[in-house]
C-alpha cells in the first residue's frame, strides 16, 4: 500500500512538473476577468433602461416571453422552455426575490453553470488526455513497465493522480472565479435565496417542492454535480489516452465528443435515443436550476446513471487494454 502511494506521488509530481495544471489556472485567471467585464457592461446597460429596479426588468422579461408564445414562428420546444421560464420568473417576482442579484457569488454560480458542460471538461482534458499517451509518445512507458509492479497498479496510480486533479480543478475554478468576480461585483451574496426544486411536467412547473436555498448551499450542490461530471469526463479522456497512441489525437477525440454534445443538446430533442450518449448528459446543473432537459425523458437520476455507466465501462476498457496490450514502440 505504501508503495502504491509512492507511485501516486510520482504521478502527481509528474503532472505538476509538466505544468499542465498551471496552464489550467492561467486560462481561468485570464478568462474570468474577460467574462466579468462583459457581464459588468451588460448590467450597466440594463441599468440604463430599467433604472435600478430589477422588478421592472423581470416583469418585462415575463411579458416579452409571453408575447413570443403567441408567435407561430417560434418552434414548439422553445415555447415549452419559455413557458417554464415565465412560471419560474413569476415565482421569483411573487416572492419578491431578485433572481439575478448582482454579486461575486451570483457571478460564480452563473459562470460555472455555463462552464460546466464545455469549459471545465476541457480543462480536465488538458491533464487527462496525455496521461498515458505521452508516456508512449516519449517512450518512457517501457521504463515504467520494466519495474516489478503489476501493470494494473501502474494504471491505477495514474488514475488516482488524475482524480485528485479533477477535484483540484473544480475547486480552483470556483476560487479563482470568486476571487476575480469579487473585484468587479463585490464579495457578497452568500445568503441570497435561490429557488430550487422546480418539478417539470411537460410545460407546467410543479411548485409544491420549491424551496429557497441560500446561495452557498446552492453552490455546494452545484460544485458536487460539476465534480461528478468532471470525474466522468476524466475517466473517458483517460480511456482515450490509453487507446490512442498520440496525445494530439486523444485530445481531438475528446474535444470532438464534447463539442458534438453541446451541438446535439441544442437540436436533438426530436431524436430521443440520443439521450443515452454521455455528451448530452453533462449539464447536470440544469436540473438544479430547474431548466428543462434537452431531451424528453431525461431526469437527474437518468443522467447520473448514464454517466456512471459510461464512466465504469471506460475504466474497465482502460484496464483491460492496458494490461493486455503489447508495448512495442
Amino acid at each position, binding site marked *: 500500500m505504501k508503495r502504491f502511494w509512492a507511485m501516486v*506521488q510520482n504521478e*502527481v*509530481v509528474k503532472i*505538476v512538473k509538466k505544468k499542465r495544471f498551471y496552464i489550467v489556472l492561467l486560462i481561468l485567471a485570464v478568462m474570468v476577468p474577460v467574462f466579468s467585464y462583459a457581464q459588468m457592461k451588460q448590467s450597466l446597460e440594463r441599468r440604463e433602461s*430599467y*433604472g435600478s*429596479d430589477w*422588478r*421592472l426588468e*423581470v*416583469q*418585462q422579461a*415575463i*411579458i416579452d416571453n*409571453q*408575447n413570443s408564445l*403567441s*408567435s407561430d414562428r417560434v418552434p414548439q420546444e422553445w415555447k415549452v422552455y419559455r413557458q417554464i421560464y415565465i412560471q419560474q420568473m*413569476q*415565482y421569483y*417576482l*411573487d*416572492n*419578491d426575490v431578485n433572481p439575478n442579484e448582482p454579486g461575486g457569488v451570483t457571478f460564480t454560480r452563473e459562470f460555472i453553470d455555463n462552464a460546466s458542460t464545455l469549459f471545465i471538461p476541457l480543462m480536465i482534458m488538458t491533464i487527462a488526455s496525455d496521461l498515458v499517451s505521452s508516456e508512449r509518445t516519449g517512450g518512457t512507458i517501457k521504463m515504467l513497465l520494466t519495474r516489478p509492479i503489476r501493470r494494473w497498479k501502474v494504471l491505477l496510480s495514474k488514475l488516482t493522480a488524475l*482524480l*485528485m*486533479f479533477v*477535484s*483540484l480543478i*473544480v*475547486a480552483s475554478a470556483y476560487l479563482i472565479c470568486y476571487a476575480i468576480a469579487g473585484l468587479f461585483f463585490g464579495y457578497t451574496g452568500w445568503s441570497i435565496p435561490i429557488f*430550487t*426544486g422546480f*418539478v417539470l411536467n411537460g410545460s407546467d412547473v410543479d*411548485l*409544491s*417542492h*420549491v*424551496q*429557497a436555498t441560500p446561495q452557498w*448551499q446552492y453552490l*455546494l*450542490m*452545484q*460544485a*458536487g*454535480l460539476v*465534480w*461528478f461530471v468532471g470525474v466522468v469526463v476524466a475517466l473517458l479522456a483517460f480511456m482515450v489516452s490509453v487507446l490512442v497512441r498520440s496525445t494530439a489525437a486523444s485530445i481531438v477525440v475528446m474535444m470532438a465528443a464534447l463539442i458534438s454534445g453541446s451541438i446535439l443538446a441544442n437540436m436533438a430533442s426530436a431524436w430521443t435515443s440520443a439521450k443515452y450518449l454521455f455528451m448530452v448528459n453533462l449539464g447536470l446543473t440544469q*436540473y*438544479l436550476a430547474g431548466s428543462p432537459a434537452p431531451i424528453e425523458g431525461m431526469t*437527474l*437520476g437518468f443522467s*447520473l446513471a448514464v454517466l456512471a455507466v459510461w464512466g465504469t465501462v471506460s475504466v474497465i476498457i482502460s484496464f483491460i487494454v492496458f494490461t493486455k496490450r503489447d508495448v512495442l514502440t
Partner: protein
Amino acid sequence: MNSWKWIWRTTAVSSAAATLLLAVGFGYGAKELVFPSANRIDAEASAKAPLTERTPSAEEGNYRIVSIGDSLAKGTGDTTGQGFARRTAALLDKKSEREVRFLNNLGINGMTTDELLQELEEPGIQYVLKEANVILLSIGANDLFQGGAALQTGTNNPSAAALAQALPAASNRLGEALERLREINPSAQIVYLGLYNPFGDIESLRQAGDEGIAEWNAKAAERIAKEQNMMLTPTFDLFQRNTAAYLSFDHFHPNSAGYQRIAERVVQGLE
C-alpha cells in the same frame, strides 16, 4: 527532492479536502433533486406578497410611463418596434422640462378585456403599475374583431350582429378593468386609447364597423368621464380617411406613421 515532497504534500492535502467537500456537495445535491423535500415555503406567500401591499410611488416631478393592454400597447406593426407608448415617451421628453422614464411595456398581442382583468391580479404587474404615474391603456379591439384574424381568413367577417353581440359584455369588462386600475394606482393619469375602424376602406365592412366602434367609444367615454385623472384619447378619425397610409401590412395594426400620430395626440392630452 525536498521540493517534490512539498509539491506532493500540498497537492494531496488540498485535493483530499476538495474531494471531500465536492463529494458532500454531490450527495446533497443528488438527494435534493431525486427526493425533493416538501415545500417549506408558505403556499399563500404570493397572495400576501410584499409586492401587492406596496403603496403607489409618490415620486413627483417626472413622468413614469407604463403601457398595458393589447398589441397596440405593445406596438405591433411599428417597424421600429417603438409603438405609440415609447413614441409618447420620446415626444414628451422632447417637449417637457420634466424627466421622462418609460418603465415597462406590458402589452401582449391578442389580449382581450377578459385576459386583462386576470393580468391585473398579478403581483408583478401591480407593482409596475404602482410605480407609474402615467398608464397608457389600449384594450377592446380583440374582443370586437378577434385580432383581425376574421378578415385575413375571410371566414366569419365581423358583421353588425356579431359586433352587437360582443359589445355590451366587453364594454362592461372595460369598465371593470378601469376600476381595477384605479384601485391599484389611485393617483396615476390613466389614458385610454379609443378604438378605430381598421376596415374603413372595405365598403362591405365599413358601415357595421363604424357603428359598433362609435358605440364602444361612446360607452367608454361615458365611463371615463365619471373618473378623475382619466381620459380617452380618440383615434377613430386618424384612420378614417387614409387608412392605407397609416395601417401596417396586416391591415389591422397602425404602422410607424400611424403610431406617431397616436403618440402626438396622447402627448397633447398629457401636457
